């Protein structure tokens, strides 16, 4: 099947998959592929996206696509890149490695570090839905403070997840990755521009997408894009670009929203609005505040104080 129709590229990740209605990751992946075009090879980690797009014998992918394991998409992609170059078949092909937040920030970190450090010409996309959704919404190191997951449940002794999000974009920067950016499906044009830009840069690229998860976050399907927008407008998810270690672009929100507007519609934060939840809300406010102060200039650690 040709991905071109009337000269226009249409869905390289086709609908008809078994993902939840409103899955932020599905929207994100479709946009990534749309921007990347048909001359890519994708290495996908285990996770929701992999499972719901390739239930045998069906596949949503109109590009060559491989799934090996949960934690090795970056390494599989590294092998593809080096081999295609060695065989002289690399010229008009680009390689994308993609995984969820768990496959990226936790179990896949070693292979990703190797891919970054060796300088492979690969775009790595992290679809961050802030938990291990495929296995039933467990906590990852990208789950935000206070969030309820099935392994960070609130209870008399707990207010949910205790830790802050690992700063994976800065981990990429620390490896000397020349292009690092964040985006959300709420701004498709911005997301696609970043994919295109990344693919024009030689070397490793890291794109971190916040992608709401309907059941995992406890939101209505039709709200998923709106929730992504609110994450940006509350500054709980900062949107930026870092080129060669310098923050070159930061999304400035026109009308900053209080964090509650983002948190309230999500069941995973409901317990924070009960008596005693205020300190966690305050911590989230501090994180948003710190994110809002991001400025163009040298990329330094943020979101940890």
């Amino acid at each position, binding site marked *: 099947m040709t991905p071109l129709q009337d000269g226009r590229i249409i869905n390289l990740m086709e609908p008809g998959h078994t993902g939840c209605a409103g899955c932020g990751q599905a929207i994100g992946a479709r946009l990534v592929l749309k921007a990347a075009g*048909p*001359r*890519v*090879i994708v*290495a996908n980690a285990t996770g929701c996206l*992999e*499972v719901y797009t*390739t*239930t*045998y*014998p069906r*596949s949503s*992918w*109109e*590009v*060559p*696509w*491989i*799934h*090996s*394991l949960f*934690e*090795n998409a970056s*390494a*599989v*992609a*590294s*092998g*593809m*890149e*080096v*081999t*295609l*170059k*060695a*065989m002289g*078949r690399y010229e008009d*092909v680009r390689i994308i490695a993609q995984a969820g937040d768990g496959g990226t920030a936790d179990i896949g970190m*070693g*292979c990703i*570090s*190797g891919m970054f*450090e*060796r300088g492979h010409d690969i775009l790595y996309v992290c679809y961050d839905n802030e938990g291990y959704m495929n296995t039933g919404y467990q906590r990852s190191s990208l789950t935000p403070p206070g969030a309820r997951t099935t392994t960070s449940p609130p209870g008399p002794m707990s207010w949910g997840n205790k830790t802050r999000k690992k700063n994976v974009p800065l981990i990429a920067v620390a490896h000397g990755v020349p292009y690092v950016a964040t985006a959300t499906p709420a701004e498709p044009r911005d997301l696609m521009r970043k994919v295109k830009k990344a693919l024009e840069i030689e070397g490793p690229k890291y794109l971190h997408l916040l992608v709401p998860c309907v059941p995992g976050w406890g939101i209505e399907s039709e709200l998923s894009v709106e929730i992504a927008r609110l994450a940006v407008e509350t500054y709980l998810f900062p949107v930026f670009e870092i080129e060669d270690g310098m923050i070159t672009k930061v999304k400035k929100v026109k009308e900053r929203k209080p964090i509650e507007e983002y948190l309230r519609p999500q069941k995973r934060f409901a317990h924070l609005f009960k008596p005693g939840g205020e300190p966690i809300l305050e911590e989230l406010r501090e994180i948003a505040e710190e994110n809002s102060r991001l400025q163009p200039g040298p990329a330094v650690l943020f979101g940890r104080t």
Partner: protein
Amino acid sequence: MRVMLEGSRAVAEAVRLCRPNLVCAYPITPQTHIVEDLSQMVADGRLDAGYVLAESEFGAASIVLGGSAVGGRAYTATSSQGLLLMAEVIFNIAGLRLPVVMTCANRAVSAPINIWNDQQDAVSIRDSGWIQLFVEDNQEAVDTHIQAFKIAEELMIPVMVCMDGYVLTHTWEPVDLPEQDEVDRFLPLYSPAYRLDPDDPFTMGSMVGPDAYMETRYHVHMDMMEARAVIRRVCEEYSETFGRGGTGVIDTYDTKDADVVLVSMGSVLGTMRDAVDELRDEEGLKVGLIKVRCFRPFPTGAVHDAIKEAQTVGVIEKDISLGLEGTLCSEMRAAFCGEESPEISSFIMGLGGRDITKGDIKQVARDLASNPACRVEFRGLREDLMDGDER
């Protein structure tokens, strides 16, 4: 060309002759010299391949998986802890039907940590769907690597060439290295039936549920069973071209009239041949020997036929399925499947680099001749470390 080379170097030269597109590994004793030699060849311009310095064995196995999936000829090497760290990828490579070739420089497995030779590493990964070929000397290591790529690519099944760490990898022996043009004729460029290619997109590594998973496993199994014939044929072709290396799945030595048959894998077989000669010449014992070269797929029929007349069989092996017996021994027994079989005993020897002497081997044969009954025994244990263990 006959040259004096260290085993690792001989393997590196054989791999170079196979023109891999991708070499990727992570250092671990006693595999290190192989990958050092290959990186030197790349640096010297003698080998035109992508060479990736992986961050771990897990990464290395994943990298060769990727290289193979885009249609490259891919090679890696490891040992022991490295092989176990690769385990998840090892199964995956086989399930994806990618014809990767690996050298496993056999080494003991931790704990206790031990860098010396036994075969626990490769044996522990036997169910992964890789063809496993155990070599006896460095010439066979050279020949088997060249055969391995051909076997793997014909069957789309990965091949692991297992060679005893140190005993072979670090030993200098004269080896005959084939000429490049001969190897090129024997092993044409790899052209896979399917690979990841934007001109012909396809999906590799789907989620397969209860409706079809079993059939995919069935097909891999049947192809593995078939592989025994392919291995035999490729080895015959090889020996027609190169005048050696014709041993397919097993080799037999003096088994025809033997009452006692000894069985093993790898480098100890040389010593065992000498032991058999001496037992026959000096003690009049009718002893024979089987070399299991292909451990997976298991050469059930060949093994069965080779020992069915024997009274008793002693399997000398450098691995143990803790809580049972030596694994090779179990599989020898399974070859009889309810049929009346000779007594088959398990002798666990040479773990973690413990020497297996000709004397030890002869004693096993003598003991079996006087008492053929089936048993499981450790041989060569140090009395002073037994603390009066009376079991």
